[in-house]
């Protein structure tokens, strides 16, 4: 019995192509009818992959036809987009996918949930048997280990999530934090909603348009304040999110200093997502004030991504260890996985390309 994986992903195909081969609920059964002893379909927005176990070799062409929703063009045109892994390479590929190493955003954990869901679907439709069971159970273990023992999932890679993460790095639990949202734009709303979902109870909204302030306050469970009163709030609040369309800075070291006198032991986190900026950059020099404008947030997001990339080697080492162990177990007859590797793209192999 040979384990194999045939599919296409964001590495090899654009979204239009992926859509054409996104498969459907019956795909697994069709694959089984095509001669697959076991088959599992993993479909996400970035990949469409079939994992199977079979005694006979099922061509990539057959699998592609099972996956295709409708093919108007000659299937050969899609050949370069498909890759095929067999035996050890298939095991390694799945472990990398489950661990988030093959994802568009390295280290994202959503793929693990999607893989679990795909496995459950195949198990309930009885298209996955003991070979895929062992393979996927091991893949889930590997993914967990990679997440626990490396920093691959650490840090956040979107501007909004970085802002929330930084707030937690400063204040710990956000439940007791007082937040002022200045300017009721779309980004402010998203950030305020995210803060509310992390337990913030005291949310205050101030906007030039009082109606919009009341509307946003209602949406996030906060209270609206008159725009001319916002500055005095800086004595009390812990987090300020500002995104007004003001041409000149609203907050400078000079006008903030008197308000910070009574709160020397409490940090103030300012998220300035306005362009042009609402807060003078020199405010960041003040004791206990942490100012992040849109560029600073983007820079942190980029650093997180770079940090995740640095973790790849450590994650690959964990995966290599598990692949070796899994293949050795197969050789002992616990799982019969062919150790032969076949991992080139369909287009790289004239023989397989000709199958399409």
């Amino acid at each position: 019995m040979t384990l194999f994986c045939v599919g296409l992903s964001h590495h090899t195909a654009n979204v239009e192509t992926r859509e054409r081969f996104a498969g459907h609920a019956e795909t697994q059964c069709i694959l089984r009818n095509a001669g697959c002893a076991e088959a599992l379909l993993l479909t996400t927005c970035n990949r469409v992959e079939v994992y199977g176990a079979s005694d006979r070799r099922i061509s990539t062409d057959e699998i592609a036809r099972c996956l295709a929703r409708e093919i108007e063009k000659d299937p050969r045109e899609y050949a370069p987009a498909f890759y095929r892994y067999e035996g050890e390479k298939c095991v390694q590929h799945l472990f990398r996918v489950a661990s988030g190493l093959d994802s568009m955003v390295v280290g994202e954990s959503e793929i693990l949930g999607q893989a679990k869901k795909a496995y459950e679907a195949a198990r309930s439709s009885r298209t996955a048997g003991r070979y895929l069971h062992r393979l996927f159970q091991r893949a889930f273990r590997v993914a967990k280990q990679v997440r626990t023992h490396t920093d691959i999932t650490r840090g956040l890679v979107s501007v909004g999530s970085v802002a929330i993460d930084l707030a937690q790095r400063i204040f710990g639990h956000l439940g007791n934090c007082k937040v002022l949202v200045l300017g009721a734009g779309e980004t402010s709303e998203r950030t305020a909603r995210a803060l509310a979902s992390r337990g913030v109870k005291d949310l205050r909204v101030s906007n030039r348009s009082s109606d919009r302030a009341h509307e946003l306050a209602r949406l996030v469970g906060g209270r609206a304040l008159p725009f001319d009163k916002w500055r005095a709030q800086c004595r009390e609040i812990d987090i300020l999110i500002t995104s007004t369309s003001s041409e000149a800075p609203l907050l400078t070291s000079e006008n903030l200093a008197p308000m910070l006198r009574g709160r020397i032991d409490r940090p103030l986190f300012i998220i300035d997502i306005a362009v042009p900026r609402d807060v003078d950059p020199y405010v960041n020099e003040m004791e206990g004030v942490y100012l992040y404008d849109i560029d600073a947030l983007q820079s942190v997001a980029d650093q997180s991504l770079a940090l995740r990339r640095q973790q790849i080697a450590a994650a690959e080492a964990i995966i290599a260890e598990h692949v070796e162990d899994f293949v050795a177990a197969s050789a002992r007859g616990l799982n019969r996985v062919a150790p032969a590797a076949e991992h080139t793209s369909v287009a790289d192999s004239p023989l397989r390309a000709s199958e399409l």
Partner: protein
Amino acid sequence: MDRYLLIVSTLCFLAAIVRTARSLRAKTFQPSRFSFLAIGLGFIFQTAFLSVRGHALGRCPLTNLFEVFIFLAWSIALIYMLVGPAYRLSLMGAFTAPLVFLLQAFALIAPIDVRHPVKTPPNSWLEFHASISLVAYGAFGLACIAGVMYLVQERQLKTHQLRSIFYHLPPLTDLFAAITRLLWWGFVLYTLGLVSGFFTGGPLPRVQLVAAVGVWLLYAAILQGRHLRRLAPKRVATLCILGFTAALTLLWGISFSAQSQSLP
């Protein structure tokens, strides 16, 4: 024989440092169970050493500078074992191990383990005074380490340069709360040590007394500044480092002068 116990203990702390340094170098820093276990093992060997030495001396092993250093290292490890897991400051081990290692390595290498003929019988007040003061030093040492962690975290947040270690350090407010608690623990214990010094029965060395009161006043001032909200957290963290440096200097002075006086 007892020195072997200390060497093993020092090697345990070294192992924790090596592990941390390797993971930092590989940019895969994780506050691991290994480091905590290594420090725990080091602490057990420290305790064994002090116990063996105490039995041999028939009193609390604080008779020379070498023993004072080891007792201080033991106090720091003890406070770490108590507060580290309790306040989710497990990363503190990464900062504690080097300090304990340096203290013990210095004590082992420097020729300060000199046995002096003890002229006076054991004095329970004196032993209480010395040991409780050193445990207070342990708390101040940990406050100093938490201060370093605070400054590292604060610097990263200010400069927007977040390294791997950033994600393992506790939030700023939690660190500051830990610093405050450790300062209070240390201050209460140090006050007990200082007061018990007056009951030892012997003549009080004026210079040491003035220096000890000076350290007490410094920590009292830090806590007062904190209480009255006159000191920003960053300054409290910096003062914790300066305060512990001053306290260590005083400890050195007391031990050195005590050793000099006992020489024939």
